[in-house]
């Protein structure tokens, strides 16, 4: 199983082998919501803040 580094707390975040670009994940250590911004190398950024017109 692949893993990346949480940009907030530096914890190792495991991901499924078929993880998708721009997929949202939660850091198991600090709970930060992360976005997969690169697949090779596997890179996360903190997910953007919710904007006012976001939703269903």
């Amino acid at each position: 199983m692949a893993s990346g580094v949480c940009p907030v707390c530096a914890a190792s975040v495991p991901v499924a082998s078929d993880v998708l670009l721009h997929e949202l994940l939660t850091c198991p250590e600090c709970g930060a919501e992360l976005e997969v911004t690169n697949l090779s190398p596997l890179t996360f950024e903190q997910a953007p803040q919710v904007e006012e017109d976001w939703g269903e």
Partner: protein
Amino acid sequence: MQIALVCSFVRAEERWIYEAFRRAGVTVDMVNDRSIVVDLDRLDGWRKYDAVVLRSLGYWRALHLARCFEALGLPVINPFSVVLTCGNKLLTTLTLIRAGIPVPHTRIAFSVDAALRGMDDMGYPVVLKPVVGSWGRLIARLNDRDAAEAVLEHRDTLGAFVHHIYYLQEHIPKPNRDIRVIVVGGQVVASIYRHSDHWITNTARGGRATRCPLTPELHDLCLRTAMAIGGGILAIDVFEDPERGLLVNEVNHSMEFRNAMEASGVDIPAYIVDFVQQVVRYGWEEAHMAPVSESRS
């Protein structure tokens, strides 16, 4: 068949839709809407697609994207007209009233003074909502005139121009829950209760989902609502008023459905994929009359 699944992020819903297309043998490209640059003189790059499934998180962005793709002649699910109506509570309410769909009593005002007069006349508590907004954000139940004056002053002073349209809705004393019904094309596919001790029952605000029996009344109401809105893939939120019965609160054009799937056991992505294929093969209108496939009957 080749589909563009346009989204802002890949959440569970987008992943499930993507995987459902692949299981159905449909070529699907996940396209991030933040990466899109549309040359309005040359939309050729999009012509390889048979349809766009639009899952942008932002209402404003979705509207503009839908319009671009429709200018190319691509079917967009959901189309611009549906996104426009669903994303604006005033447009939704007007559409439903015109179609004879029961809704909570609603008024609109365009100044603080007028909003206060409207609320005084409606009687408290009154629910103040932004005309554009989701996930229960910025919804206020105003229990008296003092609260109304305070909140309206805040909206007037701190809010952007969109907050200076005051959507006033009667407070419905619902039984600590509301109902969400999923309609895909011409089919009601799932219904759940969203329970909460808080008067705002969105699951984004902590509401808990359980299966809701799909009564003939609920089925008919939601199917008529979906058709009034223009069809497509919709999540319809319904209140149970103790005196007036079922009232449609709002319709969502880019629904989250993980809770509905878990509570109902319905494979919602499979319905979505089937509907999209019907749209490509037979067109928008015909796709709403297509029968359920045997695998789900």
